[in-house]
């Protein structure tokens, strides 16, 4: 009887690994190269799909012209932090194009990206930027003009949770930057301001898209703190229902791009990957970014979009917070300022 059990479990185990390795091989070989064409995987974050859909087309033409080779790009989109985690855990990405430097650093810390990636491409490896703006209901019934209007009683604010959404950290830091200027750097007062702001937050969604749904589809709150490009997407869908308010101070959100060194070396795709990211800075690609409501990093092209973006906005950068690592530990890590404002408000 014992032997019987042993045999059967062995057979089951063999069968099982058989199934998994069979499908595994087919999946693996599908990624490999055939007849001189080349494939790249670009792991990106949520709202960049249309941007890269257009960009991948012009890049494929560019690459074909330059090398005579066909190139196919597989896209992956998801929450920025989650995407970084997946790359760190073995998702084979040739390049990552994520929402913030901190997430790319997580991939670096897993040993997949070499130090110094930030200076590898122009403008701190941020080919396009964005900022945080307010989306309010048409006519702006609560007359919201700047950050201090958000802490008034009776104003409902919608913003995602900075602990689960990388993008929402920019919202928080932009508010912090405003309060910091307002109170001349008095930290107790700044914290109080942020606390009041988050007291007015009605729904703390887990991601930017969820927050937009809460505001737009379910009609919650008076103001949505959003990335500029996402706010424009909502306006595009509902031009008669919403308007964008640009606050006096905001933050320069720099989505970062990087080559995943370990993967490109293994797959032999370094040249293509480098060119893929480099070409994001070409005039053509910069205009695609502008058309998708990202601010082009090329100043000349940014000026072409002066009627779209408010270029007078006062933008602080993450460097004003001492870089991402510091901002992360001070504000968002367990026991950081963000936890503090919630625990004390109870």
């Amino acid at each position, binding site marked *: 009887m014992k032997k019987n059990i042993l045999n059967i479990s062995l057979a089951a185990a063999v069968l099982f690994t058989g199934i*998994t390795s069979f499908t595994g091989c*087919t999946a693996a070989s599908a990624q490999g190269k055939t007849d001189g064409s080349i494939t790249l995987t670009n792991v990106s974050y949520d709202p960049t799909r249309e941007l890269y859909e257009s960009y991948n087309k012009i890049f494929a033409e560019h690459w074909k012209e330059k090398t005579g080779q066909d190139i196919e790009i597989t*896209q992956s989109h998801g929450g920025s932090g989650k995407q970084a985690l997946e790359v760190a855990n073995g*998702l084979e990405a040739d390049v990552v194009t994520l929402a913030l430097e901190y997430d790319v650093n997580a991939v670096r810390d897993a040993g997949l990206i070499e130090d110094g990636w930030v200076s590898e491409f122009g403008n701190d490896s941020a080919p396009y930027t964005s900022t945080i703006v307010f989306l309010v209901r048409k006519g702006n019934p609560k007359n919201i003009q700047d950050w201090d209007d958000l802490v008034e009683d009776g104003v409902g604010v919608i913003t995602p949770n900075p602990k689960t959404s990388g993008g929402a950290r920019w919202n928080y830091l932009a508010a912090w930057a405003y309060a910091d200027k307002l109170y001349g750097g008095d930290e107790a007062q700044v914290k109080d301001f942020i606390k009041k702001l988050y007291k007015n937050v009605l729904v703390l969604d887990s991601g930017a*898209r969820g927050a937009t749904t809460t505001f737009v589809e379910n009609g919650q709150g008076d103001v949505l703190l959003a990335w500029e490009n996402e706010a424009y997407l909502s306006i595009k869908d509902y031009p008669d229902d919403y308007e964008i308010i640009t606050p006096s101070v905001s933050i320069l959100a720099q989505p970062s791009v990087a080559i995943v060194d370990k993967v490109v070396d293994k797959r032999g795709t370094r040249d293509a990957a480098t060119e893929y990211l480099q070409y994001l800075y070409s005039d053509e690609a910069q205009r695609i970014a502008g058309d998708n409501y990202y601010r082009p990093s090329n100043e000349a092209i940014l000026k072409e979009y002066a009627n779209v973006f408010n270029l007078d906005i006062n933008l602080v950068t993450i460097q004003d917070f001492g870089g991402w690592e510091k901002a992360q530990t001070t504000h968002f890590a367990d026991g950081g300022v963000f936890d503090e404002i919630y625990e004390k408000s109870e």
Partner: protein
Amino acid sequence: MHKESKGSKAVKVLLIGVSVLFVFLMLVLPLITVIAEAFKQGFKVYAEAVADKYTIKAMLLTVEATVFAVAVNTVFGLFAAWLITKFRFKGKKLLSTLIDLPVTVSPIIAGLIFVLTFGRQSPIYPYLEAADIKIVFAVPGIILATIFVTFPFISRELIPVLEAQGTDEEEAAALMGAKGFTIFTKITFPHIKWAFLYGIVLCAARAMGEFGAVSVLSGHLRGKTNTLPLHVEILFNEFKYVPAFAVSSILVMMAVIILIARSVVEYIGKRESENVR
């Protein structure tokens, strides 16, 4: 049919009323919402979203994962239910608890454990890499996660019925010298066939709709490792509200097809058994 008194008629009406109201509020309304959103911008937008090549690839992957999950869990479910109800042994309670455990594991944890087991942090990752076997962020991972979340569905349907039936008939048959397989097909299976059918349908429905665990494991490679629920998520995150609901409606329809198939099988089966009588 037994006679019904006035009181029992009132109870009947009340219970049916409560059931219908409950199902309407909790199930039908959300479904209507899905369908209404899917067609909000007209049939053309709907058709485009559904006929998109990535949607079709996602659908094929969903079908593949569902078929694998149902197949593995069917084999497992039959053996496990047989083991738990027909024999006495030490650790039985523990075993049946462990079988149920996957249902109650948060989908996020379910995804996480496979990433920890087969991902880059795992001690076996170098071997997998050397053999060029990809489990996480590839199709096998998706299949494994799907099997995991639907793991006990079939055995759980079978166990209560088998328990209620007891072991007398099988014991008698065995004493008369019948082989295991014969006992199963001739005696046990007729008792459990409807529960078995429910189990398969439950398993298939859940496998199609699984989102959390697969989401952690898939890597979201468009056209390669996106299942339908993930495709819905991506569309939604890309501010494509209407196409997201359109793709969800495909899942609803797939579920409806399975449920209709079940009803047909059930109907034919029950009619035949009545004819035999």
